[in-house]
């Protein structure tokens, strides 16, 4: 008998197992969530169930930027006020939300849905790189900003995309690396400090 199924009823066990499969949710957390839902009102459980079904049935990938959206093309890609000569390339849809919250970027996005990770066997063919190249070939784009995560896999992805795009005559830049606002120079790591010095600008 499965250790998760020992003290619980069958529907509860099923729910615990389903929750346990989600990223970041271990057995204990799955049990807590399942028992919370058991105690919650029928309306709350129904709302959650409908939301889960809806996200699978109604959410689509935008054919242009590959972001998760209600319609294809998404509202960002249809927005006439956005600068179509600028594309910001991000790893995940959540990165689009983070950049939009900043309010500092007025161009379009492209979501790769991951990053190159040779050790995990994730290559460019597993990402939306081909779709990005197709957008560049349309000729409207003048600059691509790589906003991949500042780690080894993110850097590898940026450099690979840069190698593919450079022959096409498009400017490829990447987000600056430096000290976070409110951070402490004393505790900054050497890589961040050296990048901050490289990318310094006059006051």
């Amino acid at each position: 008998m499965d250790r998760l199924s020992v003290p619980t009823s069958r529907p509860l066990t099923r729910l615990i197992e389903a929750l346990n499969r989600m990223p970041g949710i271990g057995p204990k957390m799955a049990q807590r969530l399942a028992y919370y839902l058991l105690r919650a009102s029928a309306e709350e459980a129904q709302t959650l169930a409908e939301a889960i079904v809806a996200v699978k049935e109604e959410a689509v990938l935008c054919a242009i930027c590959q972001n998760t959206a209600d319609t294809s093309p998404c509202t960002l890609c249809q927005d006439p006020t956005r600068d179509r000569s600028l594309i910001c390339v991000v790893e995940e849809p959540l990165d689009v939300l983070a950049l939009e919250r900043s309010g500092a970027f007025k161009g379009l996005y492209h979501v790769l849905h991951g990053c190159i990770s040779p050790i995990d066997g994730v290559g460019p063919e597993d990402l939306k790189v081909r779709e990005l190249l197709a957008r560049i070939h349309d000729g409207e784009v003048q600059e691509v900003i790589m906003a991949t995560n500042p780690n080894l896999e993110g850097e590898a992805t940026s450099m690979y995309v840069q190698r593919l795009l450079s022959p096409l005559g498009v400017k490829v830049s990447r987000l600056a690396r430096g000290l976070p606002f409110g951070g402490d120079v004393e505790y900054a790591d050497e890589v961040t400090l050296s990048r901050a010095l490289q990318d310094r600008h006059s006051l």
Partner: protein
Amino acid sequence: MLGGTRLGEADRLVTLYTQRRGKVRAVVRGALRPRSRLGGHIQPLSHCQLMLTESKGLDVVTGCQIIGPLFPMREDLVHHARGFYLMELIDCFCPEGLENPALFSLLVDTLEHLCLGEGGERVLRRFEVRLLDITGFRPELHCCLGCQQALEPVTNYLSPSAGGLLCRACAPEQSPVHSVSVNTVKVLRLLREADMETVNRLNLAPDLAAELEAALRSYIQYVLERSIKSGVWLERLRREFGPNGALGGPQNGR
């Protein structure tokens, strides 16, 4: 650091290769937060002094100081790929908690030379040969493992299952085998003993370098019983951008 995965909201579970304790897994609390004091230090391809605190089952990283910054590894796509390759090899060959100071020194030495842009692929071949030696998979390169006779200076055969070279007469009895020229055998013997300066001076013809790489790759794959994914990535970069483009200029050539 050999690799890592996200743990919870902002923590990372990292695999480290250490001088005193070999391969260990540890948690870096809050590593994914922008203001994390540890997240920037603990990145793959960095040589650090770490402070680990034993916790329930898993160690927790509580302090970190970079010893040897390996910045150039992050500045070039092929350096990246080579670094990934080294990390994957170490991860595959080393069980958790088994210290191996010789292998640690070899890894640090190899990474530092790759950072200097010296040796290129030859440094990887030296690493592979020395890795097999240190971990106990040293291939026999002087006499035939079938008939025990000294090898003639002709094309011989590397048999991963036999654990080294076979002569022409004994090779058909073993499978699979990889034909290796006299020069490849000479280079394999040299790499076993050679220091980095000697490796830097080596000038390998493309055919010889390819044969050497293929022979070592098949041997390592047999030992590990799996393919090296980052090796496939390195080959892909060479195929897509050409040997010179991928190798980033003459200083990084074979």
